[in-house]
């Protein structure tokens, strides 16, 4: 039978679509010209870059984003954040204004553009990563928007062609008083307003900062930032969604995939400041189950609370157990000792019940059982403060979480008093920190108070550098630092110095 294949190409024309030839044909893409310092990242990059650039640019941007995340996690105010970030941005991702007339203007912007899109590829795979990436990119954008040159920013906004209707002069005259009253500006202050659907500025509506008329919000010029930022986030979220869908069909040889997966992995846990070095503390002999009671004096409040609850009830609920087990694993308690510890702690329980219902979980946390991935990864990582702070708050009978966050002010005070903190000023400032949701600052404050003498000593001696006394963001770091400080002069003062906490 003769097959009529109409889709076949006329042999004479075949050369034109020979894929091999196409691939090595000269790229028709051209370098983009970056007019503005800020970028909404609408067009993906099209020009070629080297593999090395691909990786370093991405890593640099990642560094910036992780620092930003650390800032938000440490509850730095916007001003503190922008101050802290200035040097980091200059180092890793400089971006100068047009007025600087710098030679490398275009290169900087290219790097910013490309690195954004590389990370987009790396972080679009899961919902979690997407949300986090979008949040941090928005923070970065906001930061840059704020310190952008006023005129250039205006031009940039205009170039976006957002559908904002400018309020005309006659309407402005007609609504003058209402506009002024709504936007909290001073009388006589000349201002411009935009008219947008109110749904685009819900925060301004909520705070009654804009005039509303028939579903339109009259947004004053100076509130423009929240509009632009909201638009940025919206577009980025949509684009990430699309990237995620396109990702499985990514057409590439296997040069990029490893880099991308490596990037997303390192982004997965930038805050888990825990490293295995935290587990090995020189001068601290091998920890046994019996030693936990003594060592618990060096525990941060969250773990002390768990320990005291465990001792009081001879039991801990699941999440408390998990949080505590991982912490103990982090300080170097071996699996065998850990099982002994729990067995003895649950003293009201039969052996049978313990074996059946509890032992497996401990082993699982250590990576002794479970799936391949779990065993290879040696179980779970000890929880960082961020993890503990963002977990669901404990319900009735549960004791996990961060006491600074979960306890009411009075209960927190009495808990602190129970662990020996009676200084009024400290208790008062801790209360203030907590009311501002700076749980972590409160915890560090308590640490500094309880180790006041030792910290002064190591500072005076110069044996510990400033980074060794950086803000604590991990319970295991708390323990390690506390233990070392309390055992100064036992031949371990220099140890922290020597090995540098991993970041």
């Amino acid at each position, binding site marked *: 039978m003769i097959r009529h294949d109409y889709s076949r190409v006329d042999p004479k024309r075949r050369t034109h679509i020979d894929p091999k030839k196409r691939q090595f044909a000269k790229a028709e893409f051209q370098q983009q010209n970056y007019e503005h310092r800020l970028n909404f990242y609408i067009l993906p990059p099209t020009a070629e870059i080297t593999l090395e650039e691909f990786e370093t640019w991405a890593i640099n941007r990642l560094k910036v984003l992780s620092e930003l995340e650390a800032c938000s996690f440490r509850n730095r105010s916007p001003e503190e954040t922008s101050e802290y970030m200035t040097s980091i941005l200059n180092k890793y991702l400089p971006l100068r204004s047009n007025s600087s007339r710098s030679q490398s203007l275009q290169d900087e912007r290219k790097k910013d553009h490309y690195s954004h899109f590389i990370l987009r590829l790396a972080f679009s795979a899961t919902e979690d990563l997407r949300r986090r990436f979008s949040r941090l990119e928005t923070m970065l954008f906001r930061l840059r928007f704020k310190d952008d040159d006023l005129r250039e920013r205006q031009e940039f906004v205009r170039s976006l062609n957002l559908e904002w209707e400018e309020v005309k002069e006659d309407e402005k005259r007609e609504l003058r008083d209402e506009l002024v009253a709504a936007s909290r500006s001073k009388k006589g202050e000349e201002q411009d307003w935009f008219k947008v659907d109110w749904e685009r500025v819900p925060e301004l509506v*909520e705070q009654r900062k804009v005039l509303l008329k*028939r579903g339109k919000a009259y947004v004053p010029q100076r509130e423009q930032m929240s509009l632009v930022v909201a638009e940025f986030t919206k577009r980025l979220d949509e684009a990430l969604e699309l990237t995620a869908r396109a990702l499985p069909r990514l057409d590439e040889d296997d040069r990029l995939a490893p880099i991308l997966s490596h990037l997303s992995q390192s982004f997965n846990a930038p805050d888990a400041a825990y490293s295995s070095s935290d587990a090995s503390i020189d001068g601290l002999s091998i920890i046994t189950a019996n030693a936990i009671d003594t060592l618990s004096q060096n525990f941060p409040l969250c773990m002390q609370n768990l320990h005291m609850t465990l001792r009081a009830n001879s039991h801990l609920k699941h999440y408390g157990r998990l949080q505590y087990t991982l912490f103990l694993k982090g300080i170097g308690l071996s699996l065998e000792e850990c099982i002994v510890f729990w067995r003895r702690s649950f003293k009201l329980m039969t052996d049978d019940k313990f074996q059946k219902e509890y032992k497996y979980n401990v082993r699982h946390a250590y990576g002794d059982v479970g799936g391949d991935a779990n065993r290879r990864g040696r179980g779970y990582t000890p929880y960082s403060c961020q993890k503990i702070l963002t977990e669901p708050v404990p319900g009735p009978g549960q004791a996990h979480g961060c006491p600074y966050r979960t306890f009411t002010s009075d209960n927190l005070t009495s808990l602190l008093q129970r662990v020996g903190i009676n200084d009024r000023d400290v208790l008062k400032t801790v209360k203030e920190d907590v009311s501002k949701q700076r749980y972590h600052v409160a915890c560090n404050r308590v640490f500094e108070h309880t180790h006041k003498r030792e910290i002064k000593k190591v500072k005076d001696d110069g044996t510990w550098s400033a980074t060794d006394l950086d803000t604590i963001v991990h319970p295991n770091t708390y323990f390690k630092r506390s233990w070392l400080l309390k055992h100064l002069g036992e031949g371990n003062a220099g140890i922290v110095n020597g090995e540098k906490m991993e970041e």
Partner: protein
Amino acid sequence: MPHSVTPEPTPGGDSSRTISQATMDPESPDIPMADAPSPAEAETTKVNLEELFNDEDSDAEFGSSAPLIKSEEEPSQPEPIKITSKSTYSDPEIMRAFYQRLFPFRYLFQWLNHSAVPSNDFAHREFAFTLPNDAYLRYQSFPTADMLRRQCIQMLPSRFEIGPVYSTNPRDRKTLRKASAFRPLAKELVFDIDMTDYDDIRTCCTGASICHKCWAFITMAIKVVDVALREDFGFKHIMWVYSGRRGAHAWVCDKRAREMDDAKRRAIAGYLELLKGGDQGGKRVNVRRPLHPHLDRSLNILKEHFQSTILAEQDPWAEDKSAHLLNLLPDPTLRSALQKKWDSSPSRPSASKWSDIDNVAKSGALSKTSRDLLEAKQDIVLEYTYPRLDAEVSKKLNHLLKSPFVVHPGTGRVCVPIDTRKVEQFDPLGVPTVTQLLTEIDEWEDDESEKKVQDWEKTSLKPYVDYFRGFVAGLLKEEKEKSGIKREREENGEAMEF
């Protein structure tokens, strides 16, 4: 059980249709409710239900066996329900008659479905039933109005609530492979104003009881919120519903409102919310000057009410209660002057005390500017009159709210819509109770005209159902126009592609 077999299957039927109650065959083809229970079928379910609910019947006078015997003696003819002073509003028979004969299922369906043809807007809508034994049954859904009606008649919920439209049928939520496939998509923006939030400033009643005096609080709240929703947010289809006892609900049904996410709902709630802090917090209104246009407009509406409702009727600072008023004044000199004056004549009514403030201030006992005093007085007016919303209800897309037209189990009153054009005339105590309505049906006399009359038309529920019908028609009209435009556009778009 005289009413269990009423062969009157369509309170939601077309009003123009003529149905003869006595001779009508429930299976006759011209009845929209083809699936209405046949008498035999209804009889069996009824017996079961009787067994189920007898124990729950709180009314001791209605012995468990008495109605059963009666039902056997009586023929299955529509008989008036024996309504005695002893009947409680949630008696199974009363509820059954109410759902069978009075509840406007048809318009409720059209309202939630946004068109005459059954769609997912209705079919994926969550209903939650409160059963006579106080069990709470969530995630109910119905393909049509008839199915909803049927389950109401079968289960006799003391009330039911309306939730959001979900992405899939709520009844199928557990069969989904991914939990994320079941999420709320749309619901009317709702508001709840309840008299309990006014307990610290109303003097006429407390707790669950209300009178005409305190209903004025709800009236002014409706005025302020309604105008803000219309003028500021541009919503058109806003229905206010009496909650049956001492409050009101608002349903904002515009498509734009229905599709808002939680952030937008929160924004509107925040925009309308003014009073901050609890009872112990002292001054609860501290607004920035100049007043936001919304607050300025509200203040103008509320000023009169402050004079009439607060000063004259509520008299909140009578006798020794003037301390709170003093606390709200920022000026210590003025405060002590007023204190002295009122201590000597504590019986002065609130209106006089209110005007005393200005008089004493004018006589020189003022250490701050008169502008500060004016602003403080404005704040006081707002604190005593500005709507107190239960904002949490409005903030969540998936919050359930009691359906209009159900019976309030405590008062027996039907949750009727409030006509905002005549909001001042609305009388919560004049709203018909379910027993009253059923009596009205029985007392109704046919006026020889050929036109068949629906049961609800025979009662004082008629104006409310008519209002609801008009409201729903307006909503449907707009939905139709919108979808018409859309369809046209799509057609044009296609045409251009070719």
